[in-house]
């Protein structure tokens, strides 16, 4: 019975989040104005991240597949190569789920260590970038350091659950940016050279990651709140 209940819940959650994905991908609500040439960051990948966090990698995978199909059909996406549009996106929900389940039971020292490792990794990337474009490398380094400082401050407030959620959201969002652009470079999509991909990645990927972290933390803590209030009734 318990087993059956879990499986029904998974199916229904995947279905509802799929509907939200379609809604966000096909209406202007899913696009936030940002100061980049593309003009907007998408949030349509957020249901996939939430699916992975709430119900595990399988639900994350199914919703990610739906997101891939929705962007394949969307008139806003001019590239129509399934190896670029659908295949890399499968990992959004899965990556978010792995990070979340990895960090869920982690305590403050472990989370601080993860933050430090991430900060060092980004600093190394910034060093590589600064070899070719100096100001971009410095900007990334400053951003990474301030993000890590913010994370440590957040941990100091004792909110470990929110840090895990934010880390999962950022991972899922970056998986989307990095893998799709990487696939575009590998498949040699017209107009996407490695340099173009790099600049799109930073200008589009970082705002999207920040926005997804804010929204995922807000949504999942709101949901958990609803659950708690209900059980009191």
């Amino acid at each position: 019975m318990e087993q059956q209940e879990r499986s029904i819940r998974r199916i229904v959650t995947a279905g509802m989040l799929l509907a939200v994905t379609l809604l966000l991908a096909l209406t202007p609500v899913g696009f936030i104005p940002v100061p980049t040439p593309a003009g907007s960051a998408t949030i349509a990948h957020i249901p996939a991240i939430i699916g992975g966090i709430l119900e595990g990698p399988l639900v994350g995978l199914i919703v990610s597949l739906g997101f891939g199909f929705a962007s394949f059909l969307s008139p806003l996406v001019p590239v129509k190569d399934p190896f670029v549009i659908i295949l890399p996106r499968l990992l959004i929900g899965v990556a978010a789920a792995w990070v979340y389940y990895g960090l869920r039971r982690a305590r403050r020292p472990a989370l601080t260590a993860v933050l430090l490792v991430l900060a060092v990794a980004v600093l190394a990337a910034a060093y590589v970038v600064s070899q070719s474009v100096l100001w971009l490398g410095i900007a990334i380094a400053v951003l990474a350091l301030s993000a890590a400082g913010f994370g440590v401050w957040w941990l100091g407030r004792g909110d470990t659950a929110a840090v895990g959620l934010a880390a999962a959201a950022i991972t899922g969002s970056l998986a989307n940016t990095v893998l799709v652009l990487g696939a575009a470079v590998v498949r040699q999509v017209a107009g996407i050279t490695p340099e173009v991909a790099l600049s799109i990645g930073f200008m589009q990927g970082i705002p999207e990651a920040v926005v997804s972290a804010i929204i995922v933390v807000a949504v999942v803590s709101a949901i958990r709140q609803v659950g708690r209030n209900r059980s009191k009734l």
Partner: protein
Amino acid sequence: MARAASLRNASLGRFWPGDSVVHTLDPRVKLCSLGLWTVAIVLASRWWVTAALFLLIAAAYRAARLPRGAAGAVLRPVLPVLAVLAVSQLLFGYQDPAMPGADIGVLEVGAADVSLGRVIGAAIAIVRLLSLVMLVGLLTATTSASALASGMERLLLPLNRIGLPGHELALTGAIALRFLPILGEELEAVQRAQLARDITGGPERPWQLARNARRTAALVVPLFADALQRVDEISTALLARCYQGGRGRTYMRELRLNAKDLISLAISVGLLVIVVVL
């Protein structure tokens, strides 16, 4: 407010009941054909193949005998997107040197040098997108949600043989299709409510990243909360009705392929083959 009102039409398009050839085709055939035609549109490399496919889709609309304005209702939400795409393709689009007219200048504005080849390229990109949108619109205009769901489920059944959850995937898809318009209405209600509180109004300011994220969160968080609350209700309802998965389930609507279905499927396959060969 205009933004809120446009949402209602933005869901995948409405169903217009009818008894035309297109309406009465088996939903499985329609879904397969959608896939085949989509691949054909994406693969078509010559401009006249793209144009011919567009005309074929227009002919299918004719055959579906949809009411006046149905095609317009499908296309209206994507028109602004098409305009943006046209401008960006004209100015920055990839230019195929082999395209006829690549060396004929049409107009020069500042640094932008628009050649005839690029105009043709932009026109092809637009017709291709129009075809894809109209194709999906035709499917949803002529197929009811329940027919789509049963067609999808039957197409996914072979997955059960190899151990994948075909039935469960179909149920997931059916739930998504069923709740898309309901969540659309919910989103509209949230939008009006937040507008009334003056949370989402005002001009767009791309530089204020945190403000934009907060504004979007004000719309999206209630939407997610509503969707996930419905998950509770639907799961309980399915459990209360002793839902046991797909094993040994019978169907209210049995699907049988007839000659008409087979002929149209053959036409779709033939079309793809022709496009691939060309």
